[in-house]
Protein backbone atom coordinates (compact mmCIF):
# COMPACT_ATOMS: atom_id res chain seq x y z
CA UNK A 1 0.00 0.00 0.00
CA UNK A 2 1.60 3.26 -1.04
CA UNK A 3 0.50 6.75 -1.84
CA UNK A 4 0.01 6.03 -5.51
CA UNK A 5 -2.80 3.66 -4.71
CA UNK A 6 -4.92 6.65 -3.82
CA UNK A 7 -4.07 8.51 -6.99
CA UNK A 8 -6.50 6.21 -8.77
CA UNK A 9 -10.04 7.60 -8.70
CA UNK A 10 -11.57 4.25 -7.68
CA UNK A 11 -9.50 3.96 -4.51
CA UNK A 12 -9.76 7.61 -3.73
CA UNK A 13 -13.55 7.43 -3.95
CA UNK A 14 -13.56 4.89 -1.14
CA UNK A 15 -10.94 6.71 0.92
CA UNK A 16 -12.77 10.03 0.57
CA UNK A 17 -15.98 8.36 1.71
CA UNK A 18 -14.23 7.24 4.89
CA UNK A 19 -12.63 10.63 5.53
CA UNK A 20 -15.72 12.80 5.05
CA UNK A 21 -17.38 12.02 8.42
CA UNK A 22 -14.15 12.71 10.30
CA UNK A 23 -13.64 16.08 8.68
CA UNK A 24 -17.31 17.04 8.97
CA UNK A 25 -17.45 16.26 12.68
CA UNK A 26 -14.05 17.86 13.18
CA UNK A 27 -15.24 21.02 11.46
CA UNK A 28 -18.40 21.10 13.57
CA UNK A 29 -16.64 20.59 16.90
CA UNK A 30 -13.88 23.05 16.09
CA UNK A 31 -16.43 25.64 15.02
CA UNK A 32 -18.27 25.25 18.33
CA UNK A 33 -15.01 25.61 20.24
CA UNK A 34 -13.98 28.60 18.11
CA UNK A 35 -17.35 30.29 18.60
CA UNK A 36 -17.10 29.71 22.34
CA UNK A 37 -13.73 31.46 22.38
CA UNK A 38 -15.02 34.26 20.14
CA UNK A 39 -18.03 35.09 22.26
CA UNK A 40 -17.28 33.95 25.80
CA UNK A 41 -13.54 33.80 26.38
CA UNK A 42 -12.28 36.74 24.32
CA UNK A 43 -12.66 39.97 26.32
CA UNK A 44 -14.30 43.14 25.08
CA UNK A 45 -11.88 45.28 23.10
CA UNK A 46 -11.33 48.66 24.73
CA UNK A 47 -11.29 50.48 21.37
CA UNK A 48 -13.77 48.59 19.25
CA UNK A 49 -16.08 47.28 21.97
CA UNK A 50 -17.91 44.15 20.75
CA UNK A 51 -17.72 44.91 17.03
CA UNK A 52 -14.24 43.43 16.82
CA UNK A 53 -15.69 39.93 17.28
CA UNK A 54 -16.28 39.96 13.52
CA UNK A 55 -12.52 39.36 13.28
CA UNK A 56 -13.09 35.71 14.23
CA UNK A 57 -14.96 35.21 10.96
CA UNK A 58 -13.36 37.82 8.79
CA UNK A 59 -9.70 36.91 9.17
CA UNK A 60 -10.11 33.11 8.84
CA UNK A 61 -12.34 33.62 5.79
CA UNK A 62 -9.75 35.92 4.19
CA UNK A 63 -7.00 33.39 4.93
CA UNK A 64 -9.04 30.58 3.46
CA UNK A 65 -9.90 32.52 0.32
CA UNK A 66 -6.20 32.92 -0.43
CA UNK A 67 -5.08 29.45 0.70
CA UNK A 68 -7.74 27.71 -1.37
CA UNK A 69 -6.66 29.64 -4.44
CA UNK A 70 -3.06 28.57 -3.89
CA UNK A 71 -4.10 24.95 -3.32
CA UNK A 72 -6.12 25.07 -6.54
CA UNK A 73 -3.08 26.42 -8.38
CA UNK A 74 -0.99 23.65 -6.81
CA UNK A 75 -3.37 20.90 -7.94
CA UNK A 76 -3.62 22.50 -11.35
CA UNK A 77 0.16 22.59 -11.72
CA UNK A 78 0.46 18.95 -10.60
CA UNK A 79 -2.24 17.96 -13.05
CA UNK A 80 -0.60 19.80 -15.94
CA UNK A 81 2.86 18.46 -15.10
CA UNK A 82 2.04 14.80 -14.37
CA UNK A 83 -1.27 14.44 -16.16
CA UNK A 84 -3.05 13.10 -13.08
CA UNK A 85 -6.81 13.19 -13.48
CA UNK A 86 -7.50 13.37 -9.77
CA UNK A 87 -5.57 16.65 -9.33
CA UNK A 88 -7.85 18.43 -11.79
CA UNK A 89 -10.90 17.07 -10.03
CA UNK A 90 -9.57 18.39 -6.70
CA UNK A 91 -8.99 21.83 -8.22
CA UNK A 92 -12.57 21.89 -9.50
CA UNK A 93 -13.96 20.68 -6.20
CA UNK A 94 -12.27 23.51 -4.29
CA UNK A 95 -13.30 26.49 -6.40
CA UNK A 96 -16.89 27.08 -5.21
CA UNK A 97 -15.86 26.92 -1.55
CA UNK A 98 -13.00 29.33 -2.25
CA UNK A 99 -15.44 31.76 -3.83
CA UNK A 100 -17.77 31.37 -0.85
CA UNK A 101 -15.02 32.27 1.62
CA UNK A 102 -14.00 35.24 -0.52
CA UNK A 103 -17.57 36.47 -0.46
CA UNK A 104 -17.74 35.97 3.33
CA UNK A 105 -14.49 37.91 3.79
CA UNK A 106 -15.92 40.80 1.74
CA UNK A 107 -19.28 40.74 3.48
CA UNK A 108 -17.83 40.69 6.99
CA UNK A 109 -15.29 43.32 5.97
CA UNK A 110 -18.16 45.61 4.98
CA UNK A 111 -20.06 44.93 8.20
CA UNK A 112 -16.94 45.64 10.19
CA UNK A 113 -16.08 48.74 8.22
CA UNK A 114 -19.44 50.41 8.83
CA UNK A 115 -19.16 50.82 12.63
CA UNK A 116 -15.38 51.27 12.63
CA UNK A 117 -14.78 53.61 9.69
CA UNK A 118 -18.30 54.84 9.09
CA UNK A 119 -18.51 53.35 5.60
CA UNK A 120 -19.69 50.00 4.25
CA UNK A 121 -16.91 49.95 1.76
CA UNK A 122 -13.50 51.57 1.79
CA UNK A 123 -10.98 51.04 -0.97
CA UNK A 124 -8.56 49.55 1.49
CA UNK A 125 -5.79 47.48 -0.06
CA UNK A 126 -6.95 44.24 1.55
CA UNK A 127 -10.62 44.64 0.69
CA UNK A 128 -9.79 45.64 -2.87
CA UNK A 129 -7.47 42.67 -3.36
CA UNK A 130 -10.13 40.42 -1.92
CA UNK A 131 -12.63 41.80 -4.44
CA UNK A 132 -10.21 41.11 -7.28
CA UNK A 133 -9.69 37.59 -5.92
CA UNK A 134 -13.45 37.10 -6.12
CA UNK A 135 -13.30 38.19 -9.78
CA UNK A 136 -10.58 35.60 -10.40
CA UNK A 137 -12.67 32.84 -8.79
CA UNK A 138 -15.72 33.84 -10.81
CA UNK A 139 -13.67 33.83 -14.02
CA UNK A 140 -12.33 30.34 -13.37
CA UNK A 141 -15.73 28.93 -12.46
CA UNK A 142 -17.27 30.57 -15.54
CA UNK A 143 -14.57 29.09 -17.77
CA UNK A 144 -15.22 25.61 -16.37
CA UNK A 145 -18.93 26.07 -16.86
CA UNK A 146 -18.46 27.14 -20.49
CA UNK A 147 -16.32 24.18 -21.55
CA UNK A 148 -18.21 20.91 -21.95
CA UNK A 149 -15.21 18.80 -22.85
CA UNK A 150 -13.75 17.45 -19.60
CA UNK A 151 -10.15 17.22 -20.72
CA UNK A 152 -10.06 20.69 -22.21
CA UNK A 153 -11.93 22.21 -19.28
CA UNK A 154 -9.54 20.71 -16.73
CA UNK A 155 -6.47 22.04 -18.46
CA UNK A 156 -7.87 25.43 -19.44
CA UNK A 157 -9.08 26.11 -15.91
CA UNK A 158 -5.74 25.10 -14.44
CA UNK A 159 -3.82 27.34 -16.83
CA UNK A 160 -6.05 30.25 -15.87
CA UNK A 161 -5.57 29.49 -12.16
CA UNK A 162 -1.82 29.42 -12.69
CA UNK A 163 -1.56 32.73 -14.50
CA UNK A 164 -3.84 34.17 -11.84
CA UNK A 165 -1.57 32.82 -9.09
CA UNK A 166 1.45 34.43 -10.74
CA UNK A 167 -0.52 37.64 -10.98
CA UNK A 168 -1.96 37.71 -7.46
CA UNK A 169 1.20 39.01 -5.71
CA UNK A 170 1.58 41.68 -8.41
CA UNK A 171 -2.07 42.66 -8.04
CA UNK A 172 -1.73 42.84 -4.27
CA UNK A 173 1.41 44.94 -4.53
CA UNK A 174 -0.09 47.29 -7.10
CA UNK A 175 -3.28 47.75 -5.10
CA UNK A 176 -1.28 48.47 -1.94
CA UNK A 177 0.82 50.97 -3.83
CA UNK A 178 -2.26 52.60 -5.33
CA UNK A 179 -3.85 52.73 -1.88
CA UNK A 180 -0.92 54.45 -0.17
CA UNK A 181 -0.74 57.04 -2.94
CA UNK A 182 -4.40 57.88 -2.86
CA UNK A 183 -5.38 58.08 0.77
CA UNK A 184 -2.19 57.99 2.76
CA UNK A 185 -3.62 54.72 4.09
CA UNK A 186 -4.17 55.26 7.77
CA UNK A 187 -6.73 52.47 7.88
CA UNK A 188 -5.48 48.98 8.40
CA UNK A 189 -7.70 46.09 9.24
CA UNK A 190 -5.17 44.07 11.15
CA UNK A 191 -3.53 46.74 13.25
CA UNK A 192 -6.70 48.17 14.72
CA UNK A 193 -7.15 45.94 17.77
CA UNK A 194 -4.10 45.05 19.80
CA UNK A 195 -3.83 41.32 19.31
CA UNK A 196 -4.34 39.45 22.56
CA UNK A 197 -3.23 35.82 22.74
CA UNK A 198 -6.80 34.61 23.23
CA UNK A 199 -7.90 36.42 20.08
CA UNK A 200 -5.17 34.81 18.05
CA UNK A 201 -6.20 31.46 19.47
CA UNK A 202 -9.82 32.06 18.52
CA UNK A 203 -8.87 33.01 14.98
CA UNK A 204 -6.66 29.96 14.63
CA UNK A 205 -9.35 27.58 15.85
CA UNK A 206 -11.87 29.11 13.50
CA UNK A 207 -9.36 28.91 10.66
CA UNK A 208 -8.75 25.20 11.33
CA UNK A 209 -12.50 24.65 11.47
CA UNK A 210 -12.76 26.35 8.09
CA UNK A 211 -9.99 24.09 6.76
CA UNK A 212 -11.80 20.97 7.96
CA UNK A 213 -15.04 22.23 6.46
CA UNK A 214 -13.33 22.96 3.16
CA UNK A 215 -11.75 19.52 3.03
CA UNK A 216 -15.04 17.80 3.84
CA UNK A 217 -16.98 19.76 1.23
CA UNK A 218 -14.27 19.33 -1.40
CA UNK A 219 -14.20 15.57 -0.79
CA UNK A 220 -17.97 15.30 -1.21
CA UNK A 221 -17.72 17.28 -4.41
CA UNK A 222 -14.78 15.30 -5.73
CA UNK A 223 -16.66 12.05 -5.13
CA UNK A 224 -19.50 13.30 -7.25
CA UNK A 225 -17.10 14.35 -10.01
CA UNK A 226 -15.34 10.97 -9.89
CA UNK A 227 -18.60 9.07 -10.13
CA UNK A 228 -19.74 11.16 -13.06
CA UNK A 229 -16.51 10.75 -14.99
CA UNK A 230 -16.00 7.06 -14.23
CA UNK A 231 -19.59 6.03 -14.88
CA UNK A 232 -18.53 3.66 -17.66
CA UNK A 233 -16.25 1.62 -15.40
CA UNK A 234 -17.36 -1.53 -13.61
CA UNK A 235 -16.56 -0.31 -10.11
CA UNK A 236 -18.62 2.86 -10.58
CA UNK A 237 -21.54 0.79 -11.87
CA UNK A 238 -21.27 -1.48 -8.86
CA UNK A 239 -21.29 1.49 -6.49
CA UNK A 240 -24.33 2.99 -8.17
CA UNK A 241 -26.24 -0.26 -7.88
CA UNK A 242 -25.39 -0.80 -4.24
CA UNK A 243 -25.96 2.71 -2.94
Amino acid at each position, binding site marked *: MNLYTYASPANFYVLAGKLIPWFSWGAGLLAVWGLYISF*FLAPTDFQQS*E*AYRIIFIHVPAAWMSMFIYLVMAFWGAIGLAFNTRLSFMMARALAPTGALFT*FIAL*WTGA*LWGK*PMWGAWWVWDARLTSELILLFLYVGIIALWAAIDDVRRGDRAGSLLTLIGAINVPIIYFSVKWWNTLHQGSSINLMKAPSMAAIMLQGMLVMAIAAWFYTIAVALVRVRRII*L*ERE*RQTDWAKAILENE
Partner: protein
Amino acid sequence: MEWASWSDFWHMAGYGLYVWGSFGVTAAGVLIEVILLKRAGADTRRRLKRMQQWATSLEGEGQ
Protein backbone atom coordinates in the same frame (compact mmCIF):
# COMPACT_ATOMS: atom_id res chain seq x y z
CA MET B 1 -18.13 35.37 31.65
CA GLU B 2 -18.51 38.47 29.54
CA TRP B 3 -22.25 38.79 29.44
CA ALA B 4 -24.63 39.81 32.20
CA SER B 5 -27.71 38.50 30.38
CA TRP B 6 -28.90 37.02 27.09
CA SER B 7 -30.23 40.36 25.89
CA ASP B 8 -26.77 41.80 26.53
CA PHE B 9 -25.35 39.02 24.41
CA TRP B 10 -27.67 39.69 21.48
CA HIS B 11 -27.21 43.42 21.81
CA MET B 12 -23.39 43.26 21.53
CA ALA B 13 -22.99 46.73 23.03
CA GLY B 14 -24.93 48.23 20.13
CA TYR B 15 -23.07 46.34 17.43
CA GLY B 16 -25.51 43.44 17.28
CA LEU B 17 -26.56 44.13 13.69
CA TYR B 18 -22.98 44.01 12.46
CA VAL B 19 -21.77 41.08 14.53
CA TRP B 20 -24.83 38.91 13.94
CA GLY B 21 -25.03 40.05 10.35
CA SER B 22 -21.52 38.68 9.84
CA PHE B 23 -21.95 35.40 11.67
CA GLY B 24 -25.47 34.91 10.33
CA VAL B 25 -24.53 35.34 6.68
CA THR B 26 -21.54 33.07 7.14
CA ALA B 27 -23.76 30.39 8.67
CA ALA B 28 -26.30 30.86 5.88
CA GLY B 29 -23.60 30.61 3.22
CA VAL B 30 -22.23 27.40 4.69
CA LEU B 31 -25.73 25.96 5.07
CA ILE B 32 -26.68 26.80 1.49
CA GLU B 33 -23.48 25.26 0.19
CA VAL B 34 -24.11 22.04 2.13
CA ILE B 35 -27.73 21.82 0.95
CA LEU B 36 -26.82 22.48 -2.68
CA LEU B 37 -24.07 19.90 -2.42
CA LYS B 38 -26.42 17.25 -1.03
CA ARG B 39 -28.99 17.96 -3.70
CA ALA B 40 -26.45 17.97 -6.53
CA GLY B 41 -25.01 14.69 -5.26
CA ALA B 42 -28.44 13.03 -5.16
CA ASP B 43 -29.31 14.39 -8.61
CA THR B 44 -26.09 13.09 -10.12
CA ARG B 45 -26.56 9.62 -8.62
CA ARG B 46 -30.15 9.44 -9.78
CA ARG B 47 -29.23 10.56 -13.28
CA LEU B 48 -26.34 8.11 -13.55
CA LYS B 49 -28.52 5.28 -12.30
CA ARG B 50 -31.17 6.06 -14.87
CA MET B 51 -28.55 6.15 -17.62
CA GLN B 52 -27.27 2.81 -16.45
CA GLN B 53 -30.69 1.19 -16.36
CA TRP B 54 -31.38 2.54 -19.79
CA ALA B 55 -28.10 1.08 -21.07
CA THR B 56 -28.82 -2.36 -19.59
CA SER B 57 -32.37 -2.38 -20.99
CA LEU B 58 -30.96 -1.61 -24.44
CA GLU B 59 -28.51 -4.47 -24.07
CA GLY B 60 -31.36 -6.78 -23.10
CA GLU B 61 -33.32 -5.88 -26.22
CA GLY B 62 -30.31 -6.37 -28.40
CA GLN B 63 -29.85 -10.00 -27.41
